[in-house]
């Protein structure tokens, strides 16, 4: 199985570009810090958000039923999908029932997770992602590399070249303003021609039976207000109990994600557009199973702000595609192996466990603790390479036998400096691929301490 380290090799090899990517994300992280420090009650907000999510998860079935009841009273049609296949079939059935041939979408990581676009396209429906970043990666036939900034891995020249080929912009033009204007014209014609709009859901409110969608571009509102048919797709964990709880989450979401006090448009859809239809598709797709796991259930509190990615030293230096999953970064490294521990076994190891993700998480998910805990799960499942498991077993044995540790240390100090480089940095030492061992000291720390006058 190709793991995170292998997938990131090409990204890391281009040092200038990896550095540029690192700096781009750190810029967003710095904006987040400025916003967070301007709010004296920031920590109280995080506490409240965490408590609301913990409570909601402890009564999730009840709140989903309440949401469904209120949504139906609002004139919304509610659908339930156990998995991705059922979700895709439901969406297709709604679209087919209305004879839809052109669908406009605003950002939805859930539909990425379910691979909705290729499914609908195979049924003859043209799907246009309308978030600018998402449209860029869609035209490149790539998935998003970040959940909030889908094209963060691309340079303006690459987007300029893409738009030249796809949208007929001037060859060599790469001014973001010019390119955005071209996309605006292109996508407006898509909005005018679509018979249906699909949006994700940032928050679903049990009390009102409505959903809230946040964008900066206004694309969700174009898609949900121009066509007569609006489909909103949500994971079961998007629920919050009361409308007033939105104030807590909305104060945190954009500040944490992009360093803005709020997104440009925060739309509350509590029913269909006049003369139209609104559908909500509620999707499980493995989430209820995560709920049963005490160590990992808090990962369901995630509001998909992306702060943990922006701050993660591994994500910043390896790029979103190294993770090979819809949601990359620290939170993705917990969610992905829940889905398939064998396939995503390397992800919980793609972390230095520095804890920066946990520090910035607006809902206080204990991300780095979960990453560590997942390593144990994977070792127990034997999903980790034999080499790693063996070396762990040897280290475990040595560290639990102090005399063996002392003898081993002494041997290492005596032998390693005399060995030829090829022997120390052979293929059996993946640790040494990009790292140098420090010079071996003459004496151990223990020797030094014993010489100190007491």
């Amino acid at each position, binding site marked *: 199985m190709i793991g995170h380290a292998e997938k990131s090799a090409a990204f890391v090899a281009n040092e200038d570009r990896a550095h540029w990517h690192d700096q781009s994300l750190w*810029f967003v992280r710095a904006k987040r810090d400025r916003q967070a420090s301007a709010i004296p009650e920031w920590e109280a907000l995080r506490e409240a958000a965490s408590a609301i999510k913990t409570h909601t998860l402890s009564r999730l079935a009840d709140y989903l039923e309440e949401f469904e009841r209120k949504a139906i009273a609002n004139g919304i049609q509610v659908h339930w999908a156990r998995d991705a296949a059922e979700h895709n079939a439901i969406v297709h059935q709604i679209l087919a029932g209305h004879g839809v041939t052109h669908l406009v979408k605003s950002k939805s990581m859930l539909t990425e997770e379910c691979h909705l676009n290729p499914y609908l396209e195979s049924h003859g429906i043209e799907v246009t992602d309308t978030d600018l970043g998402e449209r860029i990666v869609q035209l490149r036939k790539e998935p998003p590399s970040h959940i909030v900034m889908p*094209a963060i891995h691309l340079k303006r020249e690459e*987007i300029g070249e893409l738009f030249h080929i796809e949208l007929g912009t001037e060859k060599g033009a790469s001014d973001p303003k010019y390119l955005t204007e071209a996309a605006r014209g292109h996508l407006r014609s898509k909005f005018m021609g679509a018979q249906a709009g699909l949006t994700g859901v940032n928050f679903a409110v049990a009390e009102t039976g409505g959903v809230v969608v946040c964008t900066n571009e206004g694309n969700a509102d*174009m898609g949900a207000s121009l066509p007569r048919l609006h489909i909103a797709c949500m994971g079961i964990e998007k629920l919050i109990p009361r409308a007033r709880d939105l104030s807590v989450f909305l104060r945190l979401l954009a500040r944490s994600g992009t360093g803005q006090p709020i997104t440009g448009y925060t739309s*509350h859809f509590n029913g269909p557009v*006049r003369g139209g239809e609104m559908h909500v598709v509620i999707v499980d797709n493995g989430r209820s199973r995560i709920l049963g796991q005490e160590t990992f259930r808090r990962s369901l509190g995630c509001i998909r702000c992306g702060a943990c990615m922006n701050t993660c030293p591994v994500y910043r230096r390896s790029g979103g595609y190294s993770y090979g999953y819809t949601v990359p970064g620290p939170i993705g490294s917990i969610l992905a192996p829940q889905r398939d521990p064998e396939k995503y076994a390397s992800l919980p190891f793609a972390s230095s466990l520095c804890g920066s993700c946990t520090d910035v998480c607006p809902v206080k998910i204990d991300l780095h603790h979960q990453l560590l805990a997942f390593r144990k799960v994977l070792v127990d499942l034997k999903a980790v390479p034999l080499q790693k498991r063996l070396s762990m077993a040897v280290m475990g044995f040595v560290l639990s036998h102090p005399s063996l540790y002392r003898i081993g240390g002494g041997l290492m100090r005596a032998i390693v400096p005399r060995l030829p480089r090829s022997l120390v940095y052979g293929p059996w030492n993946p640790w040494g691929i990009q790292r140098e061992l420090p010079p071996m000291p003459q004496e151990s720390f223990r020797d030094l301490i014993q010489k100190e006058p007491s």
Partner: protein
Amino acid sequence: MSSRNSILDSLRQNVPPLAPLPAPINGINGIRYADPIKQFEETLTVAGGTLVRATAPQDLASALANIEVYASAAKVASLVPGIPSRNVDLSAIEDPHDLEGIDVAIIPGKFGVAENAAVWIPGETLTPHRAIFVITQHLILVVPASEIVDNLHQAYERIHWSPNSFGIFISGPSKTADIEQSLVIGAHGARSCTVILL
């Protein structure tokens, strides 16, 4: 078993111990500003919008006349009582797609929020076509100066939810930073957002 019941059953089998629901904004002392209007203006400017302070309702027409996009607009749709539309008859529009081509929409906002420059627009204000605020090329929001709250907690205390409704917070013009993190105003929705305080 239906998918609905199977999901709910699975959730009930996996349910964690009940955790208490905190009271809304429990323990949160929402930020207050010495001068909320000044804060609103500063935040709106950062969000790419412009604030205009008109001293009295009768100044609205002259405040509008000073806004370049309004003065030069061919088509103006107004939802503000007393301010006429120009070359647009909203009541005659059946299909929201026919709103395309409107240069300026003037829409009353219920209140503003100082901490994030968001203006609350209840859906009924937008009747009959809620798409008006996003399809217009430029947006002018008219908000009573007395209705600027400090923070979002106070804002949600003011909102009344009726069944089958729509409501939106708008903070500045449409924008994107999806190309190399450089901010561009005017992605899909309004290319400019002017808030007039009365």
